[in-house]
Structure formats: C-alpha cells, structure tokens
C-alpha cells in the first residue's frame, strides 16, 4: 500500500484545522483545530519516515506531541482565566491589544 492515502488524509486534516482556526470564534474550538493541524503534520512526518525507512520523522512526531501537550496546559489555563474575567470564550471579544 502506497503512502498517498496517508498524505491525502494529512492534507485534509490540516485544511480542516486551518479553516477551523480562521472561521470559528469559540476559543476551545480554535484550540482543537490547532491540535488537528499539529496531528496532521505528525501524520505526514510518520508517513515520510515510513517511506524513507528512517527514524527521524518518528522522533520529530514525538517532539511535536510533547510540545503540543505542554501548549495545551498553558493554552487551556489562559482560556479559562480569560473566561473567568470576561464571561466569554470568543476570540473576537479578546481584542484589547490593538492600535
């Protein structure tokens, strides 16, 4: 079985994630879309690792997972803190930091 289906799936997942980030207002959903993009990238890494028969891609996928986990911790904490003060999780409402 070739690698094409995996790569197509990866591209689809990434597109879904990117569109979600751009279009959705809820911070939690935006966050999940970011995870989706990260995992799409992971899938591509692993596929290529398999294609080349090396371990580099696998290792990088692990790194991405660890960093993503850390990011989730910080990101969710920020979202919760914002929600507590502003009673809203919409990313458009948190637009004070502008010109």
């Amino acid at each position: 079985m070739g690698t094409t289906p995996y790569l197509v799936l990866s591209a689809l997942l990434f597109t879904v994630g990117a569109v979600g980030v751009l279009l959705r207002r809820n911070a939690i959903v935006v966050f999940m879309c970011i995870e989706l993009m990260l995992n799409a990238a992971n899938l591509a890494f692993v596929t290529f690792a398999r294609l080349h028969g090396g371990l580099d891609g696998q290792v990088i996928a692990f790194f991405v997972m660890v960093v993503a986990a850390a990011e989730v911790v910080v990101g969710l904490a920020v979202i919760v803190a914002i929600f507590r003060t502003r009673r809203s999780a919409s990313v458009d409402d948190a637009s004070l930091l502008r010109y």
Partner: protein
Amino acid sequence: MSALTTLDVRAVEPVATAGGVYAWTFLLIAFPALGALVLLLGGRRTDRIGHVVGTLASLASFVVAALLFVDMLGRAAEDRAVNQPLFDWLPAAGLQVSVGLLLDPLSMAFVLLITGVGTLIHVYSIGYMQHDPRRRRFFGYLNLFVAAMLLLVLADDYLVLYVGWEGVGLASYLLIGFWQHKNSAAVAAKKAFVVNRVGDMGMTLAVMAMFAVFGTTAFSGVLGGADQVSEGWLTVIGLLLLLAACGKSAQFPLQSWLLDAMEGPTPVSALIHAATMVTAGVYLIVRSGAIYAGAPLAQTAVVVVGTITLVMGAIIGCAKDDIKRVLAGSTMSQIGYMVLAAGLGPAGYAFAIFHLLTHGFFKANLFLGAGSVMHAMDDEVDMRRYGGLRRYLPLTFLTFAAGYLAIIGVPPFAGFWSKDRIIEAAFADNLLVGTCALLGAGITAFYMTRLMLMTWFSERRWKPDVHAHESPLVMTLPLLALGLLSLVGGAAMLWTAGGIVEWLEPVVGEEEHALPFPVWVLTAATLVVIVAGVALAWMRYGREQVARTAPTRVSFATTAARRDLYGDAVNEVALMRPGQRLTGSLVYADSRGLDRAVNGVAALMGGSSGLLRRVQTGFVRSYALSMLGGTVLVVVALLSVRLS
C-alpha cells in the same frame, strides 16, 4: 618640522635649579591661592575673618617675595634666574608641558609690585568695603586675582602663563561686576570679559603657532630657538602676542573695556590699573623680546599701537568729568607709553618695566585717593560736584598731590625719571613717535591738573547733604605708603644697587640709544611742555569758575573725547551689528531650513507609522489569516523556484 625640533635649544640665560630660599618660590602663588580657596569655599563661616585672611595671605606672599629679593640682590647678575620645576602637566609624546616657575630679575620686579601694591590695596579695602555685606567674597576675589597674576609672571612656559592669563581675566570679570545688582556693573564686567576674549584668541593662536614651529611652549625652547626660525613665523607669533597684549592691557583697538571697568569698587580699579591685569600685556611683550628681535614688522606694530593708545587715552582723559574715568584714560595713556617703549626693543624694555613699576605706585595712589574722596562724598564721582576738598581731606590731598606730581613727571617724583627715559628712547627711534610721546606728556599734565583743580581747589560745589570727612587710618596708611613711593620710588630704583636698567639687563638686554641732540635739551623740552599743560589747565579751570553741570554746547573734539573717541560706536558698527546680522541670518536658516527638514522627516515617519498601525486590529483570526497568507506565499515562492 623635524629639523626644527632638533634645534640646538639653549636656555635664554643660565638657569639654576631652585635650592635654598628659592625652594619657597611656589609659596608666592600658594599663599593667595590658598586664601582665595578658604574664603570662597568657606562660605559664611569665614565672613568675620575674611578681610584678615585675605590681607594676611597677600602679606605673606609679599614677605616671601622680599626675602627672595634680598637673596637675589646678593647673587651675581648672571645666576639670578632660578627655575623651580613643579610637576609634569601634559607628558604626552610630542607635547611635553611641565609646570615650573621661573624667578628672574624681570619676574622678581613684577612679583614685588604685585604683592607689595596688592597688599596695600588689601589693607585699604578693609576700610573701603567695611559696610559691604559681601566683603569676605571681595577679599576672596582679590586673592584670586593676585594668585592668577603671580602665576602669569612666574610661569616658565607659555601654556602655564596662559592659565594665569585666563585666571586674571576671570578675576577681573568677578571684581568689575562685584556690585552685580547694578545693571551697568554687570554689563561692564561682561564687556571686559568679551573684549578680553578677543585678545585671548591671539594668545591661543600664538601658543599653537609656537608649538607648530618650535615643538615646545617652554620659554627656554621658544625664546632660545627664536633666532633659528624664519622671520615670517616670528612676525606672525609677534603680532598674535601683540593682539593678546592689546586685550589685557587695553591698547588700541581693544581699549574700550577699560573705561567701563570703573563700575567695580575703587580698590579693584586700583588693582587692575596698577598692580595686575593691564601690566600683563607689557610683561608678555617684554618677556617675548627674543621673538620681537627677529620680527621688525611686529615691533613696529607694537610701537604704533602704543603711540596711538597713549595719545587716545590722554585725549579721553581731558573730557571726562567722572574722576575715575579720567584716571582710567590716564592708565590707557601710560600703558601706551610702556607698550611704545617695549616696541623699541632692548633699548626700551628696561624703561617700559621701569615706568610700569613707577606707574604702579602713583596710579594705585591716585585711584585709592579717588576712592577716599568718593568715600567722603557719598560715592559721588562727578568732579563738577567736588571742589575745595583739600581742607577737609588733608592726608588724602597730600598723598594725591604726590601721585599727581609723579604722573605728570615733575622731578624728583617717580614718573619724571621713567617717562623721561621713554620719551628719550622714542626720540632716538623715530621723530614722529617721539613728538607724540612728548605731546602726550603735555596732555597728561593738562588733564591731571584739571582733575586736581576741580577736586581739591576751586570753590565748593557739593551736593547739599554731603559731609566730607577724612577716611579712617586703615585707608590713609596705604595712601601714605604709596605717596612716599610716588615721591622717592623712581629715583630709588634708578640710583640704588646699580639701578633698574642693570638689574633687568640679564633678562632683557640693553642697548644704548643715540639722540640727535643732547639729553638735557629734551628734558628741558619735556618740562616746558608739562608746564604749558599745567598753565593751560589753570587758565581754564583755576582762574575761571567750574560749571556745576557739564556744558552741552561743546566742540566736536570734546564730544568725541567724552564718548571715548567713538570706540564703542566703531565696535558697534564694525563688529556688533554685523555679528548680530550674522546670528540673525543663521538663526533664520536654522529655523526655516534645518528645523523644517528635521521636523518634516519626523512628521513623515509619524504619519506613515500612524497608518501602518491600523494593521494591528486585535482580532486573532485576522492575524491567523495573514500568517496563512504569508506561509502560502513562501511555499509558492519555494515551489516556483524549485520547478522553474
């Protein structure tokens, strides 16, 4: 250049290094400098002892000077010059400046004059400034003045001399403007400072030129190597030094500050005119004799400047009604005599210094006497409101008369001996210059007699509520001392211990001048001219009544002399107005041109950044979109490069 720096630089005269009592030479400067330091930094705590400390500092310096003088008298003429090296000031490669003191017969004469007359002026000031709340500060400035002047005459390097030169300028500024609450005093101080700066510029350039030509600024190097330098350079340096001397000594064309400097307290005028400041220019020229020896053009310029100033000062003195301004005009004139003599080379140097010393005695005497009169007359300076004072201030009158006879040159008073020698030397040099000097003596006799008659004789023209009284002893004692010096000082210096000419000979050299006619003819002619001047003044002011207010319908010459021969007007037209216009146009160019360009660039940046910051909307999703757009752009760019 290298050829010049490897010159066989010999000392001007054999110079011994300081030992014995000469190790104390630095104390001459240290005492007054310390006095100034204590009084100016001590603040109000030293208010009560200020005048004592100041006077003692000056007196201590005089005592040291007297001890050194006695020792120097005992030495042979050729090893009287002593050098005391103090420390290395600028030990840089190619420029070695070390601070040292040079005590030779020339600087010894100055040191004695500065500390001696200076101390008498200090003592006099105790009484004169008694009721001034800032007396302590006054004495601090006086000490600073004396210290700076001593540094000037004791330095063995032109750069060190320059430090004293500037110190004298600073001290004179502080003292002329001492009564700073009077606007006229503040303006006069500023004027003195600014005019002096013009002269200082000449000094700066001269020092730079010396360094460029000789590779050193030490007296030994510059004066010793002067005969191996081209005449062009010597002329340049000589003219620059003359400019410097003109500034300090109030010579034409930088004379205008001296008459305004009368705004300071009277002891200051005495100090400036007799012991310090205006003598600095004469000292500079005499000290730089080796340079002028190789620059006849510069020497001629010195003579011309001196002659013009001596006539100008005398003419100005004739028309003034302010007693201090008459004396100021006479100072200009007398310094003109000295500069004229200094321009005659070795034939005149000794006489310039001789006249400087006698002038120091009688001019200090006259100024302090004028101060005593003002003290008695409630600070009135207009001679038209004096008259008949000889009965009320007998002591002051007596000493003033001695000063008067000395300045107009009546034998055996001090001025006769010195002025007569200068007139002789001038005639030997050039008939025209000699005639001017002779004429100057006549005019001097005229205006000084006028001053005498208007102040001491004639009827009382006082203001109604004036009660003239003799000054306290602390003021009359210095007057008596100076009066005595005016009487015997000249003859004493000429006839005792070989005389001043022989005393100065190792430093300035000596040259016999040949007169086209016997000396006694000239002396007789001088006396005749003086008597004519006195008689003219008596006919005009002794026989006739003196008007209480200055007559307004007067000849053009009188008007011109009253306005200082239009010195200020010339300065204004030639320098001030063009300077103002230059400043105005520069300000215009600056505000309209430069400022606009700079402000325009700033406005452009501000405006464009104001537009650019609109991009920062605060919406996360629009940032994300721009990131995506950027990424896509990069990817497309990479792909297009890869595929093409």
